[in-house]
């Protein structure tokens, strides 16, 4: 997978544009997925989650789409703002284990230019 801070996929957008960040997951049996945002120097912050029985879920300025056929998630951010600049990564349950463990993607760096 990609490296955090090294060779991560990057997305550069202008303020006001819409952003789409993609994530491929591995376990077809996962029953929910989570998106996190991590700003520089901070801990990961929960953004939105989606259950596997849904195709789409909307939050405030964010929409997550789930395509179970190809095991793909996307996070759409509307009217992107400079404060949205961060690393975004998805997470899924850790292969059927208990204790709430998660498997995290390596992330995508989003840079928003004013």
């Amino acid at each position, binding site marked *: *997978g990609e*490296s*955090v*801070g*090294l060779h991560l996929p990057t997305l550069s957008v202008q303020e006001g544009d819409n952003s789409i960040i993609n994530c491929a997951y591995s376990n077809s049996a996962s*029953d*929910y997925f*989570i998106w996190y945002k991590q700003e520089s*120097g*901070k*801990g*990961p*912050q*929960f953004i939105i*989650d989606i*259950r596997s029985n849904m195709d789409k879920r909307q939050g405030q300025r964010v929409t997550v789409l789930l395509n179970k056929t190809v095991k793909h998630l996307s996070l759409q951010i509307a009217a992107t703002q400079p404060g949205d600049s961060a690393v975004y*990564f998805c*997470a899924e*349950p850790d292969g059927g284990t*208990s*204790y*709430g*463990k*998660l498997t*995290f*993607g*390596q*992330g995508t760096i989003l840079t928003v230019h004013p």
Partner: protein
Amino acid sequence: DAGITQSPRHKVTETGTPVTLRCHQTENHRYMYWYRQDPGHGLRLIHYSYGVKDTDKGEVSDGYSVSRSKTEDFLLTLESATSSQTSVYFCAISEGGRIAKNIQYFGAGTRLSVL
């Protein structure tokens, strides 16, 4: 940061010294986790706890130990710090249970440098 406090926030220490990082939560969540985050590796689970005195190893547990004597506190100890343990350490908590109760919430992190 969802009622999670990590201390210290920054620490510089010397090789061979013991180091203890503390995670304190006010959410009364059952599960607690310690991760390290390094360029090239993303978030890696060190240890986790599923209750008071109940802990288990994660994928990178060598050189680390943990203790949880109270619901609110989860301690990570580096018995003899090495330079390879220079990293940013995150604590996370989750309520545990079905679906959304497994969302993990993270602390602000501890930046540890071992010289």
